[in-house]
């Protein structure tokens, strides 16, 4: 394994940890807003790390560019959908969790 491979592996594992944490949060957090918070961390940072790890292995700049584009699209869609879900929940009168 070369240095690039180690870097890739580190980024992929870090991304996987973010996804694991996000999934745990989705399962364990008390209400829809905190769950969204956990989920968007996995989608945004976790996917970003995985895309970074994969683009080090990409055979050409075009492939790396496509990976970057996928990440940006998921960022856009994820953030917007999280906002819409939260807005919908607020409109339905789901109260924000308090300790």
């Amino acid at each position, binding site marked *: 394994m070369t240095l690039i491979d180690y870097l890739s592996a580190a980024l992929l594992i870090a991304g996987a940890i973010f996804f694991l944490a996000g999934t745990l949060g989705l399962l364990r957090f008390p209400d829809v807003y905190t769950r969204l918070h956990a989920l968007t961390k996995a989608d945004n940072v976790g996917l970003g790390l995985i895309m970074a790890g994969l683009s080090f292995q990409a055979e050409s700049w075009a492939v790396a560019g496509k990976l970057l584009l996928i990440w940006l*699209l998921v960022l*856009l*869609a994820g953030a*917007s959908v999280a*906002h*819409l879900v939260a*807005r919908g929940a607020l409109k339905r009168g789901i109260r924000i969790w308090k300790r």
Partner: protein
Amino acid sequence: MEALTLLEWGFDGLLGLGLLWLAWRALTCPELFKAIVLFIAFGLLMALAWVRLDAPDVALAEAAIGAGLTGALLLAAFAKLSLVTGHEELKPARSEKNRIRFQHYWMPATTLLLVTAGLFYVILSLPPYAAGLSVEVASNLDTSGVSNPVTAVLLNFRGYDTLLEMVVLLLALLGVWSLGDTTIHREAAPGLVLDTLARVLVPLLILVAAYLLWVGAHAPGGAFQAGAVLGAAGVLLLLSSWRPHADLIAWPLRLMLVLGPAIFVIMAVLLYLTKGQLLEFPPAQAGILILILEAVATVSIGITLAALFLGGRPRRGKGQA
């Protein structure tokens, strides 16, 4: 190498079990909304399973149509259903009368068992490895006009399959339309975020659809995948309360809906008259003919899927003349 194979077995095993579990949950879940979400999750895992089976074309179609658009259609139907019944949570009535009795399910259970046994027999009697028709497809690929074997089969060797699939989609839409009308009118403002999202994504989705259509000639992609992406753009527009102009919903919409199947049929008739065979493309012009067919098919499929999401025959609203 050993560890990697083990990892792959583990992953595939989990995937298969997960699929079975999700399918069971989606079927037995008493809450409709939960069942729909489970069905969408099932579609996404199914797409992953197709990727593992080295069938990226099917995976694309499954993710876009099976999980994405069918999910959107089911959710739209659910929203209408809860509007009609006034219940947020739709649960089946659990009374003595509605409980499924043994007599009610021994017939389907027996049929299911017989079908399963038959399928097992067929699978077990298959030779462990067979090339199937892939050798013949590969040897005739030069005359098909494209270099992606899947597109060659779908549009050239078995073009009538694709034609009939498009007719099925059109019939589905006609079925929905015959159930009732939907008034075309602008609903409440969608909010800044959804509006911006639609404005950014819709041009991009159209670009992706064009790319999928073009790339289908030599790599996974093609009319159905491109049409599904176009349909998704339409669904996003409809969700952000865009509505087609009243003048467009009369004959322009209907023309776009039948354009794909119509061009297909016209081409089949012309080829029959000149070559004596339905949909037998001359090898020299096959590439361009397939591209034309796929282009019109993409537009028709996309608009049909978006029109299905509208959930009724569009009709002019009262405010519009």
